[in-house]
């Protein structure tokens, strides 16, 4: 990629995002892609005056990722999407669909993890336990 990309860890994620926000960077989106059977790659994209900057983190599929939605509410939707499609669990989501943003029970789960099906079991906390109706609330 031609733009600045920095590798970060999950621990430093929130601090980094907060710093970028303070510097005037706009949250563009989050891209998840599958690295291998165990890991996913998360790419956070930010924009300032038409220039992009990316934060890159490799995370285990079973990891609990801190949600950046308290910093950028705009991230809530995309984090839900990743939770749906990759089965990755985000904690502290301001708007949590619990894996039911796009998918129904009969949809294949999680559809984007195709290498190593063992990542299937914990589905964003929504599959097994009955999802409570109240958690899906706008702030």
């Amino acid at each position, binding site marked *: *990629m*031609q*733009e600045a990309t920095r590798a970060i860890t999950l621990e430093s994620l929130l601090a980094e995002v907060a710093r970028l926000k303070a510097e005037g960077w*706009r*949250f*563009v*989106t989050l*891209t*998840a*892609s*599958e690295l291998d059977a165990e890991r996913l790659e998360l*790419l956070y*994209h930010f*924009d300032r005056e*038409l220039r*992009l900057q*990316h934060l890159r983190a490799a995370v285990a599929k079973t990891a609990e990722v801190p949600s950046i939605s308290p910093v*950028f*509410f*705009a991230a*809530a*939707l*995309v984090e839900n999407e990743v939770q749906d499609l990759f089965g990755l669990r985000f904690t502290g989501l301001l*708007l949590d669909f619990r894996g*039911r*943003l*796009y*998918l*129904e029970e009969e949809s294949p789960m999680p*559809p*984007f993890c*195709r290498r190593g099906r063992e990542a299937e079991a914990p589905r964003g906390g929504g599959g097994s336990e009955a999802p409570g109706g109240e958690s*899906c*609330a*706008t702030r």
Partner: protein
Amino acid sequence: MRHTVIPFGPQHPVLPEPIHLQLTIREERVIEARPALGFVHRGLERLVESRDIAQMVQVVERVCGICSMIHAHCFCMGVEALLGIEAPPRAQVLRVMWSELHRVQSHLLWLGLFADCLGFESLFMQFWRIRERILDLSEATAGNRVIVSVNVIGGVRRDPDDAQLAWMSAEIDRIEEDLRRLEPATLDDPTVRRRTVGKGVLSRAQAWELGAVGPTARASGIAEDIRLTKYAAYGRLYFEPVVETDGDSHARLRVRFREALASLDLVRRAIRLLPAGEVRLKLKEPPAPHGETVVRVEQPRGELVYYLKGSGEKRLDRVRIRTPTFANLPALLVMLPGVSLSDVPVVTLSIDPCISCTER
């Protein structure tokens, strides 16, 4: 206590697309809006597994029928960047021409739908009548009315001749004249103003924080337009984003109306600028790019982001599409509480939602 709970959508006459809003209202005042998506989710990003790069162009064109040209444009630009090639100059200008034509078409469509959701049926009919002529231009030059399908990796598939281009210029002039005739009714009509001024206000700070893009952001005073990055041939066309500062539905209406006019002008100037030459690179072998890239273009609804990752095979590893509506939805959720029920369609449409884009 006295709350009414309404399922708004997925099937609802003012929503052209299925999205569900569970509205909690109290005597027409919205207290809470809970969204539900997933009625259009197809999972097309994963089609990269079974489609080669050239076929993917046809797939991404169908992410959204209203801005299909621009999706394909973005995708092709991304692949071309990965391959380290560039489309010929004529193709670049043609892409801009069709993109802007698409933008006009999309804005006219939106203006019509917006008028309709205000209950202004006759205005709706007028906008869509004009829009038909844009579609004729598309069909005549690209072969299709809606999903124009002209982009390929390394250029475009159609090359309009001079007679067509001259006819297009003349037609654009007439369309502009017709459009300007609707300007007073659209922007100044007191009943329209009453329904839009002050409805769904998004301040500049909110718009930035919620990541709003495109006309939604520009109506709140954020002068951001990806076309300013001078991709394709935009660097060679003088162009200034349309910005309003009120941040309400009427500001968004003004932005889109003026943008439609500006885009007509861009089409006209692109035609004038059109260099002679090839429109399509002859690729020796099927493209098999390696590496990753983020490409952005300006869609009618705002910033469109593609993330492409290839590993040297003829199928990409990952395509990720972040559409403008996806970025504007958080703003919508913040704007809805507090508006009256009759303004829910107005505010919802004012971000020009495109759900098929959003959910892919």
